[in-house]
């Protein structure tokens, strides 16, 4: 079959969250015998425990299916706005996409966003109406919706991934409608890295789509963004486990192992070419992605600083979008300022550090990057509120803005607009997508979006709204630094940057939340919010007077010990700041929802 690509189809599955993407992928694997039923765990392609638990995909997982003499390469893509760039690279590796739509939910905001993305990459779209076994399924209605958004519904396949209905039709459609990749084996090698993975034995494993040419073990390759040269140790394909092959050639999806030590030297979107016969131009679309959100990560126990360093290093091997730099906090000691793609990314990293590396962490409230122009003309990029210069030296402050697109049923428009206004949003546009669905466009400071905006939006729209946003640039704002003093001492890790008009209200609600989060200590603890030297809010946490097990429990010492262990466990997860023990959640107080508000 060498030299021909007729038998290859490269495709992905795009879907709104919960519309059954992972289940469908599982069925395709099962049906084509890539895995026996016995080997199947639910959602095989979501490799990380975290992915399986949260029902989301973080890394792009490829697998080769063998069906009727064809090689069908399925690339499973991440499904969250934080990972939009990874999604776009995965799509760039394909010629077609299965568009999965839930038969009773219909087309949703994210479905649309995905379709646009797929069309941008010239992908052939095969609509799959999933979950038709449900009593509430309404395929005709979904077909009408598809028609409305410009997708031909005639070819739509009715399926139920859960029940195994329509699986064969889907595979046949992939062969019939998705074009084979171009055969450009004679051209110089160009391979698109759509993901990469770090393995402690083999180094970086690059997941690639060979666009032009071919590559085999022993070849010298070059990463076009860095011009670094490596020798190929092994190439192969995913079945879904990695299986070594002689070569990969144009049209193929597979992996390359070439002694690359760090994922950041083999970034998603980069082009691999031949060192001896390099391509003139890299493949389009490579972007060095910049973090949007920063927060401080500190070990609860200062002795774990080295462990945290090692853990971040290892995570970065696998996650090139993760950036970190050492920082010190007077309150928290030594830690790192870590940059993330978004809040979900932040949560995932935090959870992985705690789970996979056994670390107990204090994570400070997320912040964005501010541009601060000093009176002397110097411009500072500030990612940590604690580093803000004295107000007297500041000429102006600029903050990042995003264009936020909110898709929601029209009955909630008023609610959503109110929320946007409360979060300093500027109205830009409103469009009806169909009779009842609306797209709202706002420009909002990113800092407002990364607090509890999304939660608020969800609760105001009973979960119906979806949010998509992109960075549009920096704008000048009237911002001030709000400091928190605990027991009379400023706690740098609790400082936040807020808009001057909202500072007092924010200060009041923050001290109130902190009062609920910080347990009583052996002495009374005042909690204050201040702007500069001016105290704008204060609450007192009363001293703990009594905490002792009274009952005897008839000699049940085990129960006593367990109660004490629970209390001790809670204490362990606290950070000593001055004389006060502060639980980890307190540092995220600014993100917490305040029920009285």
């Amino acid at each position, binding site marked *: 079959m060498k030299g021909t690509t007729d038998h290859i189809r490269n495709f992905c599955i795009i879907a709104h969250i919960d519309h059954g993407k992972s289940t469908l992928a599982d069925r395709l694997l099962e049906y084509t015998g890539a895995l026996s039923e016995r080997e199947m765990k639910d959602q095989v392609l979501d490799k990380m425990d975290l992915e399986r638990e949260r029902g989301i995909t973080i890394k792009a997982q490829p697998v080769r299916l063998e069906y009727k003499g064809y090689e069908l390469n399925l690339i499973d893509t991440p499904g969250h706005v934080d990972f939009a760039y990874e999604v776009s690279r995965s799509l760039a590796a394909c010629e077609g996409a299965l568009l999965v739509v839930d038969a009773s939910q219909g087309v949703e905001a994210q479905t649309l966003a995905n379709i646009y993305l797929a069309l941008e990459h010239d992908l052939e779209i095969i609509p799959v109406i999933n979950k038709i076994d449900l009593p509430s399924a309404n395929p005709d209605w979904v077909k009408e919706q598809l028609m409305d958004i410009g997708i031909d519904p005639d070819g739509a396949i009715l399926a139920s991934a859960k029940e195994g209905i329509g699986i064969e039709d889907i595979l046949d459609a992939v062969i019939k409608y998705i074009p084979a990749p171009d055969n450009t084996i004679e051209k110089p090698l160009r391979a698109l890295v759509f993901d990469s993975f770090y393995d402690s034995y083999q180094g970086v494993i690059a997941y690639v789509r060979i666009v032009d040419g071919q590559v085999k073990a022993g070849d010298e390759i070059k990463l076009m963004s860095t011009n670094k040269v490596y020798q190929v140790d092994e190439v192969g394909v995913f079945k879904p486990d990695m299986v070594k092959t002689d070569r990969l050639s144009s049209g193929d999806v597979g992996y390359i192992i070439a002694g690359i030590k760090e994922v950041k030297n083999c970034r998603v979107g980069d082009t691999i070419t031949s060192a001896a016969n390099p391509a003139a131009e890299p493949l389009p679309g490579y972007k060095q992605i910049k973090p949007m959100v920063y927060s401080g990560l500190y070990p609860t126990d200062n002795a774990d600083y080295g462990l945290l360093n090692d853990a971040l290093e290892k995570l970065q091997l696998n996650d090139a979008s993760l950036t970190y730099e050492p920082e010190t906090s007077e309150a928290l000691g030594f830690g790192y300022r870590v940059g993330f793609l978004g809040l979900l990314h932040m949560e995932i990293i935090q959870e992985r550090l705690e789970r996979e590396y056994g670390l107990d962490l204090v994570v400070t409230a997320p912040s964005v990057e501010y541009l601060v122009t000093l009176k002397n003309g110097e411009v500072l990029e500030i990612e940590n509120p604690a580093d803000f210069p004295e107000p007297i030296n500041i000429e102006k402050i600029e903050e990042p803005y995003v264009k936020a697109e909110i898709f929601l049923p029209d009955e909630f428009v008023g609610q959503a607009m109110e929320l946007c206004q409360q979060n300093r949003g500027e109205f830009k546009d409103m469009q009806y997508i169909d009779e009842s669905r609306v797209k709202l466009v706002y420009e909002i400071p990113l800092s407002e979006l990364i607090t509890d905006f999304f939660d608020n939006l969800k609760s105001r729209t009973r979960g119906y709204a979806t949010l998509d946003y992109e960075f549009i640039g920096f704008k000048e704002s009237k911002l001030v630094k709000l400091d928190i003093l605990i027991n009379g001492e400023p706690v740098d890790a609790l400082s936040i940057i807020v808009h001057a008009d909202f500072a007092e209200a924010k200060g009041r609600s923050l001290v109130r939340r902190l009062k609920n989060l910080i347990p*009583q200590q*052996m002495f009374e603890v005042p909690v204050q919010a201040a702007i500069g030297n001016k105290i704008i809010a204060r609450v007192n946490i*009363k*001293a*703990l*007077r*009594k*905490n*002792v*097990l*009274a*009952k*005897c*429990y*008839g*000699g*049940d*010492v*085990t129960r*006593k*010990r367990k109660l*004490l*262990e629970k*209390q*001790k466990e809670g*204490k362990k997860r606290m950070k000593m700041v001055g004389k006060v023990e502060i639980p980890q959640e307190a540092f995220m107080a600014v993100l917490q929802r305040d029920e009285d508000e």
Partner: protein
Amino acid sequence: MKMNRDMNNDINNDINNDTFGLYLHIPFCQGKCRYCDFYSVNFEREIVEEYIHFLKEELRIYSSLLNNEKKGKPVMQTVYFGGGTPGLLTARQVAGILELLSRDFTLSPSAEISLEVNPSSLTEDKIRDYRRIGINRLSIGVQSFNDRELSFLGRRHDSREALEKIELASQYFDNYSIDLIYAIPGQTLAEWEKTLKQAVQLSPYHISLYSLQIEKGTPLAAALAAGEFKKTDDALDADMYLLARQVLTANGYEHYEISNFARKGYQSRHNRIYWEFTPYLGVGAGAHSFIAPERFWNHADLFLYMEKLKAGKLPVEERIESSKEEMMAEMVFMGLRLLEGVSLTEFYDLFNVKLNEYYAREIEKLKLQGLISVGDERIRLTEKGLLLGNLVFMEFLP
């Protein structure tokens, strides 16, 4: 069974596993108090008879298991009937158990034999008969002398009945104890003082005080969740405790354990066994035992308990063997409950480890916080430490 076996080699053989405190659990009640989360079932004559049959069966098994060829029958220093409501048993039923004990075990002649009673099920005949068959200490679940508080707790007696029954008990028993609960929602410091003064006036030899804990799954917890009342805040709770300490010590009671006060010579010997890290055997549904290095406990479910014995098996639900570190922690946190504290010598004799060196960091911190005091021979809680005992105890956990 792994009894009478040597402890871990590095622990001395000084935990004497040859004499025991014996706890007998009687899981029957005439109704459930609103704060209680102990396992109990409704009192029914036939089930009680059957239960006692199996309780005796369990005792017989232990008697033969613990029988030592050289030393003879296991020696019981104290016997404690707890519940539930052991006071629902007839004197004849209790006598039957005591008979078995004196036959199959060695009951020390000076043994303390206690039985828990509630005012509502106590009669003069019963009191007299209990005394006659050998019970020498009554523990009376009074809880309060305030009728509003008693009904809040779901007790089945009022203050008048409590006074009447205590008066009766005192005619037959010198050595009786009363239990009181404080920090009851709505209770004022003045009301608590009234209850305390009433208790002092009756002049029992022993008084136990418990701060009301609202345990998960109890009717009180549900009422709290429904917003029917507010929890007593810890400042008032602390004030009530300090008031009790003051009133009782001024009236000749020695404060000898966090929750317990006694006239000289009348501390609860059975409860001291728990605090002093000495072995005890618990029989009956849900009862707990400690025979170093093991702690084990029975099925709490009455029917499961009886079924196991019916099949000739011990009704043990789970056993855990404590590590040396765990035992050290247990000895310290149980021992610190006694106001006399933990003896450094006894600790060393038991573990070959110097308490003040092994826990040097913890002790230093707690001393700085003013929670413990350390002498040449003992470490003990300060008054502040009595109020914040958990902060002390948890420091010693491994």
